[in-house]
């Protein structure tokens, strides 16, 4: 975490200054581990969800293999979410700036960003996605254990089996909704976002436009302890 925040221009940057470290290597690695585990669970889960998507099991080794690994990858995703929680808990708390931003979210959707109030390292939408995945994975874990060891739930408590199915389906669909928006925004919508989670850097213009409070905090005093706004 002690990497200098503003990286002297190693490449051609135009007249708008240097690049800023947005995600440390550790943050990038954990993001992509989480992505790997989630996508595996997504592919196998969709295969179990609908006969019309059962063919998805074939691309991850067939039905029994998919069934064997799905809960283990689910556990791995839980660990990775806990890790991300420890890493980003402070950054992800909803602040007053977020509440102001959330009221103007309509402008964000319409790409009229100049009408938005400034926000910190993450905006309200990113924070919502983070908490959705965190609470989602907690529900998926608890209900998933019920589905994993379904015979361990005695016949007299079989209503727990039905609740496990219901909770698992609802939580999975909710995270899928968030996942679709997350992937769309990270790749197609917010230009520069995808490279930032690959190589960790954003341009100063990018930082100023999307996360002004964070930009101001990291550029005001370029010392490492001021990394977080």
């Amino acid at each position, binding site marked *: 975490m002690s990497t200098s925040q503003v990286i002297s221009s190693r490449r051609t940057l135009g007249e708008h200054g240097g690049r800023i470290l947005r995600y440390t290597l550790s943050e990038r690695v954990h993001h992509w581990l989480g992505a790997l585990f989630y996508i595996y669970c997504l592919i196998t889960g969709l295969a*179990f969800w609908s*006969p019309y998507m*059962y063919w998805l099991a074939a691309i991850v080794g067939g039905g029994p293999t998919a069934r064997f690994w799905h809960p283990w990858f689910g556990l791995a995703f839980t660990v990775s979410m806990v890790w991300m929680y420890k890493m980003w808990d402070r950054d992800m708390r909803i602040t007053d700036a977020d509440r102001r931003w959330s009221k103007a979210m309509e402008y964000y959707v319409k790409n009229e960003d100049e009408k938005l109030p400034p926000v910190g390292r993450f905006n309200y939408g990113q924070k919502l996605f983070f908490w959705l995945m965190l609470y989602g994975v907690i529900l998926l874990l608890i209900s998933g254990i019920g589905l994993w060891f379904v*015979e361990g739930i005695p016949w007299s408590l079989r209503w727990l089996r*039905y609740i496990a*199915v219901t909770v698992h389906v609802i939580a999975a669909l909710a995270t899928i909704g968030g996942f679709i928006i997350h992937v769309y925004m990270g790749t197609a*919508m917010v230009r520069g976002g995808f490279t930032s989670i690959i190589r960790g850097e954003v341009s100063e*213009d990018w930082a*100023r436009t999307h996360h002004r409070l964070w930009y101001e905090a990291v550029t005001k005093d370029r010392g490492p302890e001021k990394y977080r706004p």
Partner: protein
Amino acid sequence: MSQSTLAVRRISGHAGPAPGEDVERSELVCKLIDTTTCIGCKACEVACLEWNGYTFTETVFDNSYQTMPQTAWNYWNLIKFNEHEREDGSITLLMRKDQCMHCADPGCLAACPADGAIVQYTNGIVDFQQQNCIGCGYCVSGCPFDIPKFNPTTKKMFKCTLCVDRVSEGLEPACIKSCPTGCLHFGTKDDMKDLAETRAKQLRENYGIEKAGVYDPAGVDGTGVIYVLHDITNPEAYGGLPKNPHVPWVVRIWKGPAKWIGNLAMLGGILGVTLHYLRYGPKEIDAEKHEGKQP
């Protein structure tokens, strides 16, 4: 195997209709268990093990004659012994042969996500196809009778097949063949229903067992295994035989409307972000725009 020549009526986890659906008709087969003449000898338990190639496993003693608390993946046929107090205070032992009921509307099949892991033949037998089973255990949640059991070694589900390999060769199931009192019968559903009703009528009229009746629950559209009970109003007394079994409504919604609502929502999400991109496009950093705002 010879049962592969049997036509399939329903198939689990299958996209589209079952292959061969409605191309062939056959009589429904049925097992009749007359609990009023069962003596609890467990010959059917042994015959089941022998025919299906399982060896006798460890039993669990629970202060009763019962071999173990529930059926197991390698023990498909279990007589349930229940002490029952009659209205006059005397004690009787209710004995019921417990196994897969071969529901006309099978909850295991409805819940199963694996293509072809559970099939229902046109003769009504519900059979697990272990080569297609993925061991997820959804059938455990779907079954209203607590029948499917998991083999932790092979990670496949097992249950009574109604000796489909014998039936498809014109033989009766192994349990039927072994019964010394003749309390087990096998034939077409219509014949067994007739026989059962005749027996129940006999019990009511000639033996004064007024509540005698036939257990063929309508909640699962009838079963391929039917019982004659001394007291049709209290099937729970026979080791927890449910009074009105039906496929759990959670399973019905999960495999019915929830699937389509969920699929439409996912499709809607993908469509939504695509439309957003077409309408508003990407967020690009226009450096000029921020020229005046630099600190």
